[in-house]
């Protein structure tokens, strides 16, 4: 039931005075220990029977003070910490951080490093979407896709392991480029994976896209309009599924993305089914990008000239990239010392989670599960 904290909430989520039937209102606490809240999200639901009247997210159960830690580490030392935010898309986090500091230092990574970054980041996007697909389907009750996606995600993790030794929190990039040259056979491994993976997307789609129950469970569930998305600052596949063609890789190209030819899949209705289709489309586009990058992988150095002790000039910088979950931005203030004065992260999951209330009002309890799944949140990133 609602506790003292929730009396602060705008929803007035106290235990209803009247018992169950007369008011027909029920306040239910979902999480933090709940199988479908993707970690330690706590949702307080106010229900009319099974209909959701409103909900309130209680977050912070996984707060580790990543931003504060950043103020006490040098720029290089802070790099591995960002991997721990969105741990299913650690490479994207690293890319965002490295690019931001590079912007602060006014250096640019050499082309080969850029290409390898694109390959690893897009592979990471695929891995993140696979994990999302598996868990989302599991929430809706289809247990089999989870195992299929994990089987295929394993291949990506193997490439990471071969490249940098770690599978999940990779710390793959360094400020100014890459620490490691690609291993022998990297291109072959990636190409093999792409050939292996293309039919697998069709396999996932075969399991779900035309499945009657899946369509019934996801069509017109958790609708959100483009206006609401923009007003709430929602980004990523959720925004694109509402029909807004906004992708930072196209809108403000970073890391060589302007050299690649790819489409931005968008939806129309902004419902759970469209978000599913958009993410499936993004996986196909990622495969295209990786294929182009691997074909055009240039030779050359992998590290720009970066001072051993980084002391960026006094100033501030904001840089954002298109992470698998949306716009991942870093705002770093430098006071000229070796440590940032302030690091602020704009995590896509945190901002997207704000839309949960809008998307769930008037829907049923079972839809809340579907919507939490479709938002693709990672609590490590929400709480930081």
């Amino acid at each position, binding site marked *: 039931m609602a506790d003292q904290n929730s009396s602060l909430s705008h929803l007035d989520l106290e235990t209803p005075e*009247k*018992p169950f*039937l*007369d008011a027909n209102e029920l306040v239910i606490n979902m999480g933090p220990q709940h199988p479908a809240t993707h970690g330690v999200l706590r949702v307080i639901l106010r229900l009319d029977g099974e209909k959701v009247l409103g909900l309130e997210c209680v977050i912070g159960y996984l707060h580790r003070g990543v931003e504060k830690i950043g103020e006490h580490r040098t720029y290089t030392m802070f790099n591995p910490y960002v991997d721990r935010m969105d741990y299913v898309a650690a490479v994207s986090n690293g890319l965002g951080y490295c690019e931001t500091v590079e912007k602060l230092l006014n250096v640019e990574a050499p082309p080969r490093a850029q290409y390898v970054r694109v390959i690893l980041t897009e592979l990471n996007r695929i891995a993140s979407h696979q994990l999302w697909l598996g868990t989302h389907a599991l929430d809706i009750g289809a247990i089999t896709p989870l195992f299929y996606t994990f089987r295929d995600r394993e291949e990506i993790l193997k490439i990471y392991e071969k490249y940098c030794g770690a599978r999940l929190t990779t710390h793959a990039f360094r400020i100014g480029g890459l620490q490691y040259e690609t291993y022998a056979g990297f291109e072959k491994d990636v190409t093999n994976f792409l050939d292996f993976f293309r039919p697998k997307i069709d396999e996932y789609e075969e399991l779900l896209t035309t499945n009657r129950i899946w369509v019934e469970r996801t069509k017109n569930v958790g609708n959100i309009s483009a206006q609401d998305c923009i007003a709430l600052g929602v980004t990523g596949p959720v925004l694109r599924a509402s029909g807004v063609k906004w992708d930072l890789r196209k809108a403000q190209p970073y890391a060589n993305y302007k050299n690649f030819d790819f489409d931005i899949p968008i939806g129309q209705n902004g419902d759970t089914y469209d978000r599913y289709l958009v993410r499936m489309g993004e996986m196909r586009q990622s495969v295209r990008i990786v294929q182009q990058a691997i074909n055009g992988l240039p030779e050359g150095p992998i590290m720009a000239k970066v001072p051993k002790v980084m002391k960026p000039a006094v100033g501030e910088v904001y840089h954002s990239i298109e992470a698998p979950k949306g716009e991942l931005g870093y705002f770093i203030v430098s006071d000229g010392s070796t440590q940032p004065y302030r690091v602020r992260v704009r995590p896509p999951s945190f901002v997207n989670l704000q839309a949960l209330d809008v998307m769930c009002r008037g829907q049923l309890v079972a839809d809340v599960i579907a919507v939490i799944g479709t938002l693709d949140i990672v609590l490590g990133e929400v709480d930081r």
Partner: protein
Amino acid sequence: MQSMLHITTLHYLVLGAALFLLGVIGVLTRRNVVIVLMSIELILNAVNLNLVAFSRTWGGVHGQVFAIFVITDAAAEAAVGLGILIAFFRNKETVNIDEVNLLKW
């Protein structure tokens, strides 16, 4: 003793009468509407028992057919009674039959 061991129609009738009395006591003395409704079910069941026992005595199935009708009635009665109960509870927030003292609210 012999009459105890030889089960006749009268045995069933006495059982039915006892159940009927229990139901009547429940209806007349309890305050909780749900239990009053259940007591009515007891009364209907006592009647059913008699009907089936008579049907056994005279070797026909008329009594059984009537028992089925009574069960139908009981279903209708339970549905309507519980519907009224829910409406009542929603307005008065109680299930006490003493407080049903208005014909309209």
